[in-house]
């Protein structure tokens, strides 16, 4: 069984577990008040529905033949990791440095473009975003 197939199973399992979590927590809330549902009723219904529907997808996937293609996931994972690192760096080094570093890493590190054009493009994009969000829209970027 290749990753591509297992990955979809993980996705369906994730939704099943989230549904179960919502059911579990909703049961601690008031469910009914007079004639109408209270805070916990709809979350409980959503939890049951999500768990049941996602479990049905799980069964469907488990019974299906593995027809997935074996395309690479290395690059998307690196890009996703870089995004998470940039978000983690935001409160520490600020918007400009974290976004500039993210762009240089993606251009030069992931895409193997030459460092100078990568740095120039990264600086131009970061500068443009800074001008639009900070100077024009007045957003207090970190």
């Amino acid at each position, binding site marked *: 069984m290749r990753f591509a197939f297992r990955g979809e199973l993980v996705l369906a399992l994730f939704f099943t577990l989230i549904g179960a979590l919502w059911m579990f927590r909703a049961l601690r809330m008031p469910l009914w008040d007079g004639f109408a549902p209270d805070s916990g009723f*709809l979350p409980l219904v959503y939890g049951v529905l999500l768990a049941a529907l996602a479990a049905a997808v799980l069964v469907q996937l488990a019974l299906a033949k593995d027809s997935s293609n074996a395309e690479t996931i290395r690059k998307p994972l690196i890009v996703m990791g870089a995004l998470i690192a940039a978000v983690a760096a935001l409160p520490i080094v600020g*918007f400009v440095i974290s976004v500039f570093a993210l762009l240089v890493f993606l251009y030069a590190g992931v895409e193997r473009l030459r460092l100078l054009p990568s740095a120039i493009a990264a600086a131009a994009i970061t500068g443009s975003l800074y001008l639009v969000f900070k100077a024009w829209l007045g957003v207090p970027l970190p």
Partner: protein
Amino acid sequence: MSELGHLLAGFSAALTLKHLTMCFLGVLMGQMVGVLPGIGPAAAIALLLPLTFGADPTSAIILFAGIYYGSQYGGTLTSVLVSVPGESSTVMTTVDGYQMALQGRAGPALGIAAIGSFIAGTLGTLGLTLLAPPLAQAALAFGPPEYFALVVLGLTALAAVGSSVLKGLVAGVAGLLIGTIGIDPQNGIARFTFDQTWLLDGVEFIVLTVALFGVGEVVASCALGAARPVADVKNVLPTREDWRASRLPILRGTGVGFVIGVLPATGATIASFLAYILEKKVAKDPSRFGKGAIEGVAAPESANNAAAAGAMVPMLSLGVPGSGTTAIILGALIMFGIRPGPELFTKNADLVWAVIASMYIGNVLLLVMNLPLAGLFARLLKIPYRWLYPPILALCIAGVFSQSNSVQDCWLLAGFGLLGWLMKRYDWSMAPMILGLVLGPLFESALRQSLTLSHASPAIFVTRPISAVLLALALIAVTAPLWTPVFAPRAKAI
């Protein structure tokens, strides 16, 4: 005021410099995102949401609508020139459009697509003008049970648009579930905040939309290779024979596209498939199809543009989106504090009619852009995706942070972005999740009000005729995959 009076007032609003600029920017961006790989109209609108937050709602919706129908024009270029559909609704254009390009007739293929799109877009907008107001008027009698049923129909219909109804329903329910995070507006109880104060306000529509359609799509597409060789574009104007062969296919495609676009759970992709099949059925020599028949370009291109206008009918009059992109536009309306649904035509008539008027103007702008400038837009195809996706990710971070100046929102961006990537990778429809989040509060309040009215009897949803019909339609949308194979062999025989 009559519909004509409203439309004229809409034109006077749409023709102001501010709205005209937004309309031009919208169709230009729509054209570009239709051409560029790895980014569609839904992602483009998602990325622009933070920039329009706090702006004039009319301008913003004119911009978003322009991106939506403009992308239908742009997707044609990639279909014809590199045999890669820019949008799913231009898949059928690829069949004959690329063959025409191989025969050195890329110009006439793009030309007839632009003319057909213009005619269909304009006639489709005319249909929207005539059909949406009476539909909204009829729906003004809606009470809580009807609104409840409308939300059920909207969610199930959108779930049915994707590759799997079951996966679409999972996404829709997950969206409703995310919508329960935060303070319950009814009684002030904090729900599913996991003791995190920053979750008391819930998950913002912008954060989820940018994460799924911005980060998710970009990460899923970042493995795209280098730009492909692009066919040359010369002599965009079709010949007299081309025009003669395309006239009726354009009109038939427009009719098919508009009707399909108005129906929930269908959309531009199905419309273009049906229009192509219809042309092949009525053609004197069906064997020409697939080998560069210009009717095979004219009909589906007209159909997808008419369907884009048609999909605005249920979105504006009932608050039921017919496609992923209209679901995001619906969310944007709510973000601006406007309640979508039948009251839109009475309470926000200025906005609705300005948007409709801008669609007429936008179609003219697109025709002007596409005939002389098709070659110029074709050059965008030469930009490798590796230069495009890093700035999109940077824009996602800046846009989400600016929503409420919160780093926690950026963490949600990363988390939901990861989820969006997996959903995109395994072809799970993401739009129902957005719609679930957006319509969740309306759904909950409509359920509570309905059950209070009926003294807790759920029969209220099936004893009121409109509510019963809407729920029956929802049931049909969900169960369609079960019973359509029963009719399929008979249809094949025909």
